[in-house]
């Protein structure tokens, strides 16, 4: 009896403790719920890749089957669309990464007339709704009578990827330690050798991250492609077309494969970046 009286005076009241506990753990509980909300659709996509739908629509759970995973590449239209998307994404990534990296170098390393205009021209595409970009490109292609197809898709994809490449490479360049380049030049390397042997290798993780982003943007693009594809079918366009008549379950399998590959690629660039940072840090300390 006495003991409990003492504890009651020492410990704060139950509501106060509950309040303190909420304040301490509340943000984390909220964060956990918000993250669950972000991940639920991915879980659903994964789960429904094992579904055995009764009709052509894969909306309600019927039963477990592995047959769709066994048949992932068994639908030829889906294969063709995937192949087109991959080709398109690789080409768009290579071109936009090269062009964007050069722009980023110019913006960070050089002072020049027209810089503000260049900055503006890079920001605006990121702030333009995709539907407007797709519509305006289509307007131009219509007026010139250019046939829509793989080429117009490539033009469009490079266009909307460039800005994002610039932003990623630029942020890497701003935090760049220039003393290594100065050391190379002190040791007699000309600007080109310095760039190829010092700057580019150190910049590579940033460029890889930018390329990954460009690839992800390209392979996932629906809206701009929908306007400028003509009869060419990419992976998202295939899904959209199939949506009316029932999307094959194999699409879920492909989505999960793409998800896993991106996850691994992203992990690899993060590791590479850490290694490059460690490499840049290992040099003789100044006395």
């Amino acid at each position: 009896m006495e003991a409990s009286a003492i504890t009651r005076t020492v410990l704060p009241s139950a509501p106060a403790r509950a309040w303190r506990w909420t304040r301490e753990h509340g943000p984390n509980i909220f964060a956990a719920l918000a993250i669950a909300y972000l991940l639920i659709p991915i879980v659903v996509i994964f789960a429904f890749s094992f579904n055995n739908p009764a009709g052509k629509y894969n909306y309600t759970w019927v039963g477990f089957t592995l047959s769709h995973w066994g048949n992932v590449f068994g639908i030829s239209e889906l294969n063709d669309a995937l192949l087109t998307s991959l080709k398109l994404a690789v080409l768009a990534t290579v071109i936009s990464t090269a062009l964007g990296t050069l722009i980023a170098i110019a913006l960070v390393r050089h002072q020049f007339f027209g810089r503000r205009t260049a900055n503006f021209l890079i920001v605006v595409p990121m702030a333009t709704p995709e539907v407007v970009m797709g519509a305006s490109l289509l307007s131009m292609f219509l007026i010139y009578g250019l046939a829509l197809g793989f080429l117009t898709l490539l033009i469009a994809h490079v266009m909307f990827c460039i800005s994002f490449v610039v932003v990623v490479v630029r942020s890497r360049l701003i935090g760049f330690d220039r003393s290594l380049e100065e050391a190379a030049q002190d040791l007699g390397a000309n600007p080109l050798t310095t760039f190829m042997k010092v700057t580019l290798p150190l910049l590579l993780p940033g460029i890889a991250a930018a390329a990954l982003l460009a690839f992800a943007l390209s392979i996932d693009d629906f809206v701009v492609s929908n306007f400028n594809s003509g009869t060419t079918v990419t992976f998202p366009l295939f899904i959209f077309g199939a949506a009316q008549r029932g999307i094959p379950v194999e699409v879920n399998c492909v989505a999960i494969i793409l998800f896993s590959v991106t996850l691994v690629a992203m992990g690899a660039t993060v590791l590479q970046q850490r290694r490059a940072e460690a490499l840049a840090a290992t040099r003789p300390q100044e006395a």
Partner: protein
Amino acid sequence: MSNRRRRLVPYFLLGPGILWLILFFAVPMYFMGRLSLDTGTLETGFRFNWQWSNFHDALSLYQTPFLRSFYYAGAATVIALLIGYPLAYAIAFKGGRWKNAMLLAVVAPFFTTYLIRTIAWETILSDHGFVVSTLQSVGIVAAGGRILQTASAVIAGITYNFLPFMVLPVYASLERIDPSMIEAAKDLYASPRTAFWKVTLPLSLPGVVAGTLLTFIPAVGDYINAFFLGSNNNHMIGNVIQGLYLTQRDYPAAAALSFVLMAVIMLAVLGYIRFAGSEALMGEEAVAG
């Protein structure tokens, strides 16, 4: 290197990329503007005619979906801020060793195809699904009522799809706050709540503004969510533009609508650049995409 050549270097570096953006971003905007002033139909052919009435006709005909787009995108942006700010706060200040894993979870949805993500919500919110039957038993949704094909479903879908664009910039600005600023406030006897309202929140405001823009802009032009999760009564301006361009082939009206949409958004962006500078919009904030 001679001085003159050195001065030309940045233009050689910029040249190819900027040229691509001029030819395939800026010039098409001009052509879209021109097309919006054409007269004619697909059968008779289109002729440039300074037909300003196209704007008036298209806007009065499609006023409802136009306003609806701003309403849906606005609502989704507010909800994304209400979910995204506390989430970014928890990652920045309470994440500890889970920080990177939490950030990865925030961007993870981007690794699955946008269309499939949205279709997954169609599955989750379907009429006989778990969510609807639970909400029906609690009485939030009327018996026999549905979520799919309502404004709520479209707004929820938009919120979901653009939430990471809100979280990442807010996180970046919270992460940059010097903890000693918050400690100083507490040393000066500010309660945690006062310290938040007077120090943390104002310092994170650039991230909030960037996140709001990065969420609102793609949301207002979106038509995927309205297409999969809504009914004909939930069509947004993106659905109208897409239909006019690709199905009805009424190019002048479609171009006029796109042009107005672009103009409204440009005003918002220019206002923001005035407020924070174009470099700020391009900084860590924009890596989100």
